């Protein structure tokens, strides 16, 4: 009986050890594709997004002809998942954001997004043979907010394109863009005083009304 027991224990141990090895292997194999998502650096994300968007436009005649609906679809599917648009809108609105109701905040985001997509649709339609060049990232591993710098090269002068990204809290949640600059002009900063003017004169609802009106007028022109 004793001998049996000992052998039993020995077998159990071997079994446990084997199971552990197998489990470790399985985890490693399954985690490999996830590791990519966890570890993608902010500049790698921007590089992947830029190349993806540039390639899509190059291969899509409708977008290059200025088809706004298609640009909106492209922006929604590829770019927006990587943007913290709430933060972008809130920073442009400034201190008044905290006083705005959730409904007002929602409307502000909707209208601001339409305005921006229309603005960039025109620029994206100009893409021909441009390539993207990343500049070295200067950030520490523990940084929660980073500046990623790149330039778009075509013929002639290159176009500076920088992004501010924030680390989404939580493991593997990735990075999201909350501001960008073209030729040194930051998007949020360019809207900040215009928004403040509207809010000072007509309140948050006044700003929403002005944005809606502008979007309607832009829609008619296109």
């Amino acid at each position: 009986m004793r001998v049996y027991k000992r052998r039993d224990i020995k077998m159990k141990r071997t079994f446990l050890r084997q199971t552990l090895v197998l489990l470790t292997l399985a985890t490693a194999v399954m985690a490999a594709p996830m590791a990519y998502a966890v570890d993608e650096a902010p500049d790698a994300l921007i590089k992947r997004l830029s190349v993806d968007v540039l390639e899509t436009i190059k291969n899509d005649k409708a977008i290059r002809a200025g088809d706004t609906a298609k640009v909106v679809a492209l922006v929604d599917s590829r770019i927006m998942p990587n943007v913290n648009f709430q933060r972008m809108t809130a920073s442009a609105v400034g201190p008044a954001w905290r006083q705005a109701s959730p409904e007002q905040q929602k409307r502000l985001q909707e209208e601001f997004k339409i305005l921006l997509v229309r603005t960039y649709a025109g620029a994206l339609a100009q893409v021909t043979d441009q390539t993207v060049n990343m500049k070295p990232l200067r950030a520490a591993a523990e940084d929660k907010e980073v500046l990623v710098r790149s330039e778009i090269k075509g013929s002639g002068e290159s176009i500076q394109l920088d992004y501010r990204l924030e680390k989404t809290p939580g493991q593997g949640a990735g990075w999201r863009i909350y501001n960008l600059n073209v030729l040194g002009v930051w998007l949020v900063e360019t809207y900040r005083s215009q928004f403040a003017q509207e809010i000072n004169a007509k309140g948050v609802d006044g700003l929403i009304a002005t944005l809606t009106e502008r979007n309607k007028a832009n829609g008619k022109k296109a």
Partner: protein
Amino acid sequence: MNMVKLTHPVVAVRGPARRSAMVRVVLLTLVVVLQACSAVPYKDPRDPMESWNRSVFKFNDAVDVAVVKPVATAYRDVLPHWVRTGVGNFFNNLEDLWSGVNNALQFRALDTADSFGRFVVNTTMGFGGLLDVASEMGMERHPANFGLTLGRWGVGSGPFVVIPLLGSSTLRDTAALSIEYKGNLVRSINDDSTRNALTVLNLVDTRASFLKAGEVVEGAALDKYSFTRDAYLQRRRNQVYDGNPPDEESAPDPSAPD
């Protein structure tokens, strides 16, 4: 406050007799300026002359809508693309020489070499600058004017200024204008009619190349004046710091929970 400080050395040199009169004039000016400012509800510290600037901006816009934009549009629609490219290249080539001088004044060896190199290559192989051969050879443009040189030497931009007909500027860039004109090769042409014709052609060609951008601003801006000002000041600051300006105190994220 700045105005008082600025005039102080002058006052000291002129002596106490004129001092009270000067101070009175300065104070009066301040009162007028402050009153003018009070008409603007949202004030930007970089733009103390906002109400004056706004009226010049309005005037410039009216001139653009009435004359410059229609002419530029016709120019774009009538002339084939390659002709316009040639015209643009020609003026860019003249500008490259001035950029070279300024890049040298800023002690930027590579940019200086590129700028002068471009001028030599394009003037000879590019038939007087009509073809931009240098770009094909990988020599990049590094546009620089004297306002930028002053900025890189450490001169602050000063307040935002809108100049009649010329548009957005700063006090520093406005002060640099007289030097800028000396560096403009078109302006040094002796024959009046040739000089004027080239100046107008340059203006129309430049405006034509901004027609699309103008439409973008038209659609994107809630207030064209603020939009133009804020974009211009950021762009200029970015140029002075060579594409990597230090952070201005950035506001915290208002959407973040406390």
